[in-house]
């Protein structure tokens, strides 16, 4: 299936990416090609086949509810590009 530039722009927004004009062109072409290849999955009869999300059948893993130390705040914030020692700093979410 051929993707349009508008499809690719929409997916880029969903994926929180920005693409330059030339990237948009290349990406549209390459994704169309890859999706075209992937389309061969349609020929497989999967009627009644359970999807397999994991390589080993995952079962619930229960752990005792024991309080243990978690990552100290300082360590959690240490790699943040902007922080004030108490939390992460981000551009305004509401208003300007």
């Amino acid at each position: 299936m051929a993707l349009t530039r508008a499809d690719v722009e929409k997916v880029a927004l969903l994926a929180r990416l920005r693409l330059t004009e030339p990237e948009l062109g290349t990406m549209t072409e390459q994704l169309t090609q890859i999706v075209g290849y992937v389309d061969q999955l349609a020929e497989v009869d999967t009627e009644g086949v359970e999807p397999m999300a994991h390589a080993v059948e995952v079962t619930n893993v229960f752990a005792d509810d024991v309080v243990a130390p978690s990552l100290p705040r300082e360590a959690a914030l240490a790699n943040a590009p902007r922080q004030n020692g108490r939390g992460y700093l981000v551009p305004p979410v509401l208003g300007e």
Partner: protein
Amino acid sequence: MSIVDRPASELRKSLASGELTSVELTQACLDRIVAHDQSIGAFLRVDGERALEQAKSVDKRRAAGEKLGPLAGIPVAVKDVLCDSQAITTCASRMLAEFRPPYDSTVVARLKQADAVLLGRTNMDEFAMGGSTENSAFQPTRNPWDTTRTPGGSSGGSAAAVAARFAPLAIGTDTGGSIRQPAGLCGIVGMKPTYGRVSRYGLVAFASSLDQVGPFATTTEDAALLLEAVAGHDPRDSTSINRPTPAYTESINKPLAGLKLGIVPEHFGAGLDPEVSTAVKSAIEVYKSLGAEVKEVALPHGKYGVAAYYVIAPSEASSNLARYDGVHYGFRADQSSALADLAAERQAFVAAGNAAAADNVDSPLVRMYRSTREAGFGPEVKRRIMLGAYALSAGYYDAYYLKALKVRRLIRRDFDEAFKQVDLIVGPVTAGPAFKLGEMVDDPLAMYLVDLYTVSANLAGIPAISLPCGMTKAGLPIGLQLQGPPLEEDRLLRGARMFEAATDWHTKQPTLAGAK
């Protein structure tokens, strides 16, 4: 023969007997890296000082008669995707160029417990996405057998480091073939264990249901040694399998009596390089001469492996990589310019009399996310995130993602059926020998097809190993792949060792430029 040319199993004996110290061995590795890594580019960072300190400490403890771990004093190179609280962990991405993990991954912790010497961090495709190590944001890695060629990927740095004898052992990760393919192209042993055999805790996630950590070595015995040290249940990884780890090193030299090998006719079809085909067929003859029975088995859904993989892996990647938002850790694009751009876009709409459209322009926070990810990720990572976001988006989820998961189940069933008839499946690991750097960078689909023989094992979660089985006329290594049923690493290693014991392909080494 220099110290660094010897396999880890021998080095262990020499270290134990006192004939060699870990400091001497570590220094020899570091010297070789200094002499040759400029032309290979296997390492992103070499941690010489720390390595020598660890070596010194092991030597001291050995002299004091202390009980030491199974890798005591042996240098190991680690792919830059496993968190180490004492080392920057970049995943070869600008996004994590300065990232200092606050904890050790379980694999790194186990290497430390085993008293291994951590030599440095090896290059890789950014976030392990790629088949040539050219997608690293920092440098390409070159194949030690021919520096105009790629070592394969994504664990190309680890494979090249072992092939060039910079380190006797290295750790890689395999999501669609990223250990086995570079091992094949570099003429060494590489193994992908059963999914869940090795903990993924602290492994920077790419496609969580497929990623598995595994060993690189020059011999199967060394691969067994390294796997034994890092495998085992980990309560911090909920997908970790709670089963004891067999002592692979103890059983490895016991040949498998009455071995039944399966071959898949499609693995020898169009697209397979004739020299690779010949080498793999001769390897099968070697097995026959050792008494193995060889029969054809069918993996009818194998041909859909790459298609299923390139839906599932990017889908999981698009979700896993959502965490790189410029907020919690890692790179953030310069906000002032991103926000100025945003204001300018708004104004342009207003000036054009389209105030409503101006409201649809990103918020400052979303613009910060988008510009951060635009600047922080390389082209292949963007391509996979886009592909995954597309496959998971409303309207396409059933046709792509869900469909791929169903095909995945059929692929696994094929293996289950085949392993009722045979013990192991044998075939090529790659369709051709190492390709030229730059040859496929502009053709992502062609690059994806290099995973043809390896992806199915990841989809099915089964263990598989690649070992050297020949050489092209041009002097490039050829790999042989063995695949086994879940949790049968022991069988796989013993089966691989049978071939290795009967041949000498694993002893071949590249001649490095300027090397004596």
